[in-house]
């Protein structure tokens, strides 16, 4: 369970560029929650992820994952429990390392003695099984450098790397936005499957409003560093994209402006 209590973050404090990206945000994520997050540009969606993953330290508030305080830990110490995927497929893998080496990095952070061989024969079968689930043929190219893979293949591999060590939370920051539609759909299907199978609490930022309402079990909307809408259950089932737009303008007194926002149903 993830709990955010009154989290506030202001960038460039005391300068003309002072900008409060998160304003007293509180949010509780249950273990079976798959939350989709919507919001206009600069609403604080990615900042929310940064606060949880530890890209920066928050000014105020508490972040608890399964009762353990995260707010004081550096990024790499949180990463053991928090898997993160970004929009850029290049960000999550090391291009000059092979597929099996990348997987070994993700797998062995906690359990391997530092001077033990990184890639061991006994792991290969496991890697191969995991990769074959993607049906991308990656399992036959374990010794290939990751830089030679396509964006979709790299993102699928990143997804596997982020989830292979059983994180307690998965953060997806528009992780299919840079892929072509067919590949995006495939990676999305794999994502849903992994999240369901492993029962990982997940938060996903998306600019596709239709997808936001159909994926997962709960949708929140952010604006100006605050959560302005949090819907689940029947309320969410009856929600449509036009209704969502109306709700937004009603709550904020302005039009939703995300230059990449897709209004598909």
């Amino acid at each position, binding site marked *: 369970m993830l709990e955010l209590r009154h989290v506030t973050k202001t960038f460039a404090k005391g300068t003309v560029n002072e900008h409060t990206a998160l304003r007293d945000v509180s949010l509780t994520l249950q273990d079976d929650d798959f939350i989709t997050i919507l919001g206009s540009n600069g609403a604080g969606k990615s900042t929310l992820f940064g606060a949880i*993953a530890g*890209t920066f330290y928050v000014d105020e508030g508490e972040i608890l994952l399964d009762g353990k305080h995260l707010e004081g830990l550096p*990024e*790499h*110490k949180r*990463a*053991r429990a928090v898997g*993160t995927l*970004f929009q850029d497929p*290049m*960000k*999550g*893998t*090391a*291009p*000059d*390392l092979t597929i099996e*080496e*990348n997987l*070994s*990095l*993700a797998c*062995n*952070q*906690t359990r*391997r*003695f*530092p*001077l*033990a*061989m*990184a*890639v061991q024969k006994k792991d290969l079968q496991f890697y191969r099984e995991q990769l074959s689930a993607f049906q991308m043929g990656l399992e036959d190219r374990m010794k290939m450098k990751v830089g030679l893979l396509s964006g979709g293949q790299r993102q699928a591999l990143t997804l596997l790397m982020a989830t292979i060590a059983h994180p307690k939370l998965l953060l997806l920051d528009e992780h299919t936005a840079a892929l072509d539609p067919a590949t995006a759909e495939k990676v999305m299907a794999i994502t849903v499957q992994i999240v369901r199978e492993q029962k990982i609490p997940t938060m996903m930022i998306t600019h596709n409003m239709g997808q936001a309402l159909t994926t997962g079990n709960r949708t929140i909307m952010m604006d100006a560093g605050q959560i302005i809408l949090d819907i689940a259950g029947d309320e969410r089932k009856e929600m449509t994209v036009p209704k969502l737009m109306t709700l937004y303008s009603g709550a904020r007194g302005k039009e939703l402006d995300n230059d990449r926002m897709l209004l598909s149903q």
Partner: protein
Amino acid sequence: MSLTMFLGGLQEGLFYALLAMGVFISFRILNTPDLTTEGSYTLGVAVSAVLTVAGHPVLGLLCAFLAGAAAGSVTGLLQTKVGIHPILAGILTMSGLYTINTAVMGGKPDVTLTKTTIFNKLYEVFNINLQAFNRDRQAFTMAKEITVLIVGAVLALLVLALLIWFFRTHIGLCIRATGNNEAMVRSSSINAGGMKVLGLAVANGCTALAGGVMTQSGGFATISNGAGVLVVGLASVIIGEAIVGRRGVTVGLISAILGSVLYQCLIRLATSLNIFPAYYLKLVSAVIVAIALALPMIRENLGRHHRKGGKSHA
């Protein structure tokens, strides 16, 4: 090219191979130009010389490696803990090391290795002494030269094997990943800063070991021994890559050794043919490295001109 010249190139090439592997680690694996090299090489020279004079030549090599590793860690900590620009961090360490190196040598600018070096020890083991070769001065010299060659080869291969192993271990892989995609490592559970420090420690340990063995071979240590060694290391790495190509870490380390030997032989050839006087060496090395590093850009520009030309003709 005479045999002795070739032998000399081979010997020094194998000693400098340790330096080339160190430079390969910082320059190619960690992806940072590390100027500590010049200081840590001399630190290796100083530590090894002083301990040899004190009667511990083998310990001298070991401590040279450790001292170099410590110097590399300082640069790494300056980069990661206090956020100093990588090049400036290296310059600061190198500059500071000048004082340390002089202090290690007891405040003197040079030390003559009067006591037994590892080489003298091995001459004894192989029973190479003047009496046995009394009648044949040339055979005596040859036996000595070959001993030096064997020491260089054994040391280079030993360090090569250790480095190949190290970069295949889990921690070695973490270092490679840090140099390859730092953004990824930062958002993973690997401590990117720690990996950089460790990588620079290993790199400068190898560099200092090169200085340590070189000074025992030459029997003389001066504070200016390290001047220009970074370019020597870079040239070796680049020449090796030009021959073998840029592939993985294992191949890269081997090609650094080949490049180092080839570079030393080429330099001897060039100076013996009187193409240029010996003092031109540093300029020539710098130009070689600059051209090699500029090649990708030059190729790209040529390609663009070709495309442009093609269009205008069409």
